[in-house]
């Protein structure tokens, strides 16, 4: 029995907080994401989205507070959390020097998928993400959209309960974007995976997410379905209007998200460039 049959939320934060010296990146955050939903996290740069995801994926310990992911406490049971989640970072997580097949093979081995099951899972994953023909090519020769699809396939090999996608379509052209969206929807349909994703793309949030949270200065300032958020902002309002209303002048790039602002920007741009 999956925990989702017994429990409502796949993710629940409890006073979750992360400080970097004097900066409070995530400030006593309280929210939950229903099992099986696609939950979108919006916010200007520096709102705390990446810090939040790093904590939920156990890459970064919280300064205080905690969260439950797939039924496990991220502070007390990080190993169980890691077994239950998939994560596709904003940066490239597929290894360009390995083939698509090899990337999946190494992941399968790390997650203990063995024997017959391994080859069939890898085959299915390649098929599902329409990558079968490119399986033996090295990933550095893939297009941006193919890399993203491979990374999502990789993160789904062990059928995680919760999947974290950090800016899954950043730097992709509209066609590649649409293909990634379709595959994300299919994942949820087929495996009932809960998906938490960050995005800058209002169209993406509107079209793909069941729930949207807008984050600003370490807090969630708006939370609801895209329809209800838009209705709350006025007649014919778009999600962009909601965003502006919620974050004020924060539309322009905000302050540091974490210690190394410059480094982060550099990374983001590098990623975007490579994915073009």
């Amino acid at each position, binding site marked *: 029995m999956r925990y989702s049959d017994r429990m409502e939320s796949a993710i629940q934060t409890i006073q979750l907080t992360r400080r970097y010296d004097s900066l409070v990146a995530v400030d006593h955050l309280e929210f939950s994401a229903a099992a099986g939903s696609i939950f979108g996290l919006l916010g200007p740069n520096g709102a705390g989205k990446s810090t939040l995801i*790093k904590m939920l994926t156990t890459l970064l310990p919280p300064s205080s507070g905690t969260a439950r992911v797939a039924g496990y406490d991220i502070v007390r049971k990080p190993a169980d959390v890691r077994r*239950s989640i*998939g994560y596709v*970072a904003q940066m490239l997580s597929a290894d360009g020097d*390995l083939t698509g097949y*090899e990337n999946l093979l*190494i992941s399968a*081995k790390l997650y203990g998928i063995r024997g017959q099951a391994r080859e069939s899972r890898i085959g299915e994953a390649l098929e599902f993400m329409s990558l079968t023909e490119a399986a033996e090519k090295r990933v550095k020769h893939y297009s941006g959209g193919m890399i993203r699809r491979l990374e999502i396939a990789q993160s789904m090999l062990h059928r995680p309960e919760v999947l974290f996608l950090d800016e899954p379509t950043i730097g992709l052209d509209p066609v590649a974007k649409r293909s990634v969206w379709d595959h994300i929807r299919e994942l949820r349909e087929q495996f009932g995976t809960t998906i938490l994703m960050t995005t800058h793309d209002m169209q993406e949030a509107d079209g793909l997410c069941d729930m949207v949270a807008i984050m600003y200065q370490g807090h969630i300032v708006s939370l609801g379905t895209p329809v209800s958020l838009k209705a709350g902002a006025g007649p014919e309002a778009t999600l962009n209007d909601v965003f502006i209303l919620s974050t004020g002048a924060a539309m322009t790039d905000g302050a540091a998200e974490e210690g190394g602002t410059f480094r982060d920007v550099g990374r983001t741009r590098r990623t975007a460039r490579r994915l073009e």
Partner: protein
Amino acid sequence: MSEELAVRHAAWSDTPQPLALLLQILAVAEADVRKLLHDPMELFTRMLQPVLWLVIFAPVFSRTRAIPTGGLRYLDFMAPGVLAQSVMFGAIFYGVSIIWERDQGVLQKFLVSPAPRVALVAGRALSSTFRAVVQAIVVYVIALWMGVALQFSAWRMAGVLLTVMLGAAIFSTFSLVAACIVKSRERFMGIGQVLTMPLFLASNAIYPLSLMPGWLQVLARINPLSYQVDLLRGLMVRGGYSVLGFGMDAAVLALWLAVLIAIATKLYPRIVI
């Protein structure tokens, strides 16, 4: 609860923990080795250093006859030192690839996997031993060509390979620790440059411990490279012997590796923060 876990995560549940750990270590190493096989250029560039030492330095230096080698020709005395040195120089920059992978994002993928941190660290150490074995073969070929009095019995060869692998694991893990502390490629390269020559010179690679001033002997006796060289000198060449004893050498190297892996395991998650 544990029953539920077993059903949900059937993957690892049927595997005893030590075996699971071993398989994860192998998976981490495999990723690295496969990359190396796709692009073996790095292995070739590493061949240059030992060639320089054995073909240029050794013949010139052996003319001085100033170094007490315990009855060995200087070339024979130096060949084990050159092997140990080339393995160390290769392994000490291993941390760069970790930082590179961190910058790309590949490393985060390993850190969110259920593999324990110690498996990630040990897997890296293991993959560096693969490179070391390739280097050992190269050094043997050059040494043979130069007329070094190599010994080829099976147990000696096995001993040499094990020693070289141990040395690579030690210095690559040391490099990993440094990478976790400095976190940027530029700073790391600086540190690597600063460390290699002192480690090399404060060892018995090209002159014996007995020739060093007291303070340098103390440093050389801490330096794991000295123990690696001492082992190799006893194993590789005719007439060579271990000054400190095989048991002592192996024990010190094993201790160094255990300590470094423990530190690296502790520091490893910090590299992505």
